[in-house]
């Protein structure tokens, strides 16, 4: 039998129900491996104390309910450091919140607790989810387990590594512009950005409120679906959360029509990544699915649009950190000094850069040229996608233009931002998108994972899971 920490959620759930494995054995083996590997990888910022009461409760539920118990009962999960669990530190990997203990619990955590899932610890991330490499964390970088000289992607790099290196069975991340899907791609796992509003944001530290979503990082598409179904749903605490059928239902077609905007991937994508992408499409075509060329002209502007809207929202959201009520605090001679000193010493460089950018695009004289134009372009982008989905069921692109890069390789901000070029569109349109592993590429003798991203219409996660499973199958 596989080591329990290496199992998928589905495999562990079956072993637990067959009594081939106990909840305690699963917890202890996963914690033991995670703590050992964490010395090198730094995926976790903190391991939580053993959840004795919760372990006992999960085992009792399995014993009493057997196959009727939720699939997540007794499953150890990792949680990104920007999701609140009351009484536990949630720092967003920032000096600003290094000692902040959450005063309430996120809805996703509450839902997972109702399923008797277990929480191993909080995972490293880019500070306030601002980054694509986990290098902006105030608490050290996380290393990619496929090559420790390379980044794990970001911002949910810690969660992705925890899953990829079998330091958790699955994990929660958050995705504002690709922060689940890009690290999933770079670590060879599955990552889903749900439809905006499909999952409650209550208890998620806000970065870009119109863009943020919590979602799963998992070892398989099946696992991603299990975790997504457990956390999804309308929440009275989040006015932007969706009722179940706000958008029309999307039956899964037997044969998928896969739209490919080839003009977007002609430049800027590594040759080997493009080759893997074409091979994956060819395998899907051989399985009877149709690949259709499409054009999405406004998509070429998606990244600049995103880098206007996101910093505008982030600078507004981060205005709450002023050293008064919680978080890092430094005192000067005036109240204004208190604000400035607390913010200037509490925030890292990338966070400050984005706050300044957001302040600029919202400032008088520039708001029309930047923010309002970007907001209008965002509407046009959504319309183009909706029109494209009249001809196809999903839209496919590589998740990121290249495999994991080396630490420090992307020194200037724009080259780092370009990492998000294929992922930001789903956040701007609010549509769901999933990254599924393709076959690996080789860099300097080391095989490195890369992913394919599928986007579908709002609330059509079922279509994404179906095509994700097909992709896993045709690439086996």
């Amino acid at each position, binding site marked *: 039998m596989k080591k329990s920490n290496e199992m998928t959620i589905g495999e562990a759930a079956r072993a637990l129900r067959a009594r081939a494995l106990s909840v305690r054995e699963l917890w202890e083996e996963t914690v033991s491996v995670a703590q050992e590997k964490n010395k090198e990888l730094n995926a976790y910022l903190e391991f939580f104390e053993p959840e004795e009461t919760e372990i006992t409760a999960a085992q009792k539920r399995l014993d009493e309910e057997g196959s009727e118990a939720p699939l997540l009962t007794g499953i150890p999960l990792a949680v990104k450091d920007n999701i609140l669990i*009351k009484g536990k530190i949630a720092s967003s990997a920032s000096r600003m919140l290094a000692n902040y*203990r959450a*005063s*309430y619990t996120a809805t996703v955590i509450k839902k997972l607790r109702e399923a008797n899932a277990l929480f191993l610890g909080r995972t490293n991330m880019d500070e306030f989810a601002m980054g694509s490499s986990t290098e902006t964390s105030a608490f050290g970088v996380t290393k990619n387990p496929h090559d420790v000289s390379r980044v794990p992607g970001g911002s949910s790099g810690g969660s992705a590594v925890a899953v990829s290196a079998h330091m958790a069975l699955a994990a929660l991340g958050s995705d504002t512009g690709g922060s689940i899907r890009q690290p999933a791609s770079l670590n060879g796992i599955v990552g889903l950005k749900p439809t*905006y*509003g499909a999952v409650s944001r209550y208890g998620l530290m806000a970065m870009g409120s119109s863009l943020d979503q919590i979602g799963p990082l998992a070892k398989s598409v099946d696992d991603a679906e299990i975790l997504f179904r457990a956390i999804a749903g309308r929440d*009275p605490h989040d*006015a*932007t959360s*969706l009722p179940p059928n*706000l*958008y029309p239902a999307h039956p899964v077609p037997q044969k998928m029509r896969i739209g490919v905007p080839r003009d977007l991937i002609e430049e800027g994508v590594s040759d080997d990544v493009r080759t893997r992408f074409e091979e994956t499409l060819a395998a899907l075509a051989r399985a009877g699915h149709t690949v259709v060329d499409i054009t999405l002209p*406004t998509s070429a*502007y998606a*990244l*600049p*649009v995103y*880098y206007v809207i996101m910093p505008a929202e982030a*600078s507004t959201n981060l*205005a709450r950190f*002023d*050293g*008064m*009520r*919680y*978080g890092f*605090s430094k*005192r000067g001679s*005036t*109240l*204004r000094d*208190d*604000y*400035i*000193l607390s*913010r*200037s010493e509490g*925030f890292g460089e990338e966070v*400050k*850069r984005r*706050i*300044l*950018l957001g*302040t*600029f*695009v919202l*400032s008088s004289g520039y708001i029309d*040229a*930047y923010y309002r*134009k970007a907001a*209008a*372009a965002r*509407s*046009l982008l959504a*319309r183009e996608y909706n029109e494209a989905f009249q001809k196809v069921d999903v839209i496919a692109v590589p998740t990121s233009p290249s495999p994991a890069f080396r630490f420090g390789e992307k020194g*200037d*901000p*724009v080259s780092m*931002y370009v990492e998000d070029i294929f992922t930001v569109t789903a956040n701007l349109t*609010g549509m769901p998108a999933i990254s599924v592993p393709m076959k690996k590429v080789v860099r300097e003798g080391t095989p490195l994972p890369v992913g394919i991203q599928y986007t579908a219409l709002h609330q059509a996660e079922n279509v994404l899971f179906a095509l994700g499973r097909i992709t896993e199958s045709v690439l086996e």
Partner: protein
Amino acid sequence: MKNPKTNAPIEHLATLASLSIPAGRLPTLAKEFESILAYVSQIESLSLPREATPPIPALRNVLREDADPAPARAHTKDITYAFPEKKGDALMVKKIISND
């Protein structure tokens, strides 16, 4: 602002954002800012159709009724524990209005 020749625009933005940027960091930041603005300024070349009526989104941010408030002081302890400076449940801040 698109091509800041001095550090003054960055310093002004920092003031607006309640941040202070060390003098030694300003030239690098100004250069990075210039590069980022050049990138996002691509949206200037995007021509947008004039729409008679903006589309009404399916998802709208409808606020819930302000009902069922938590009992008084139910969360006070959870919230006030993190106050950097406090006296009991009171948040201490510097006096900003003089009696003189």
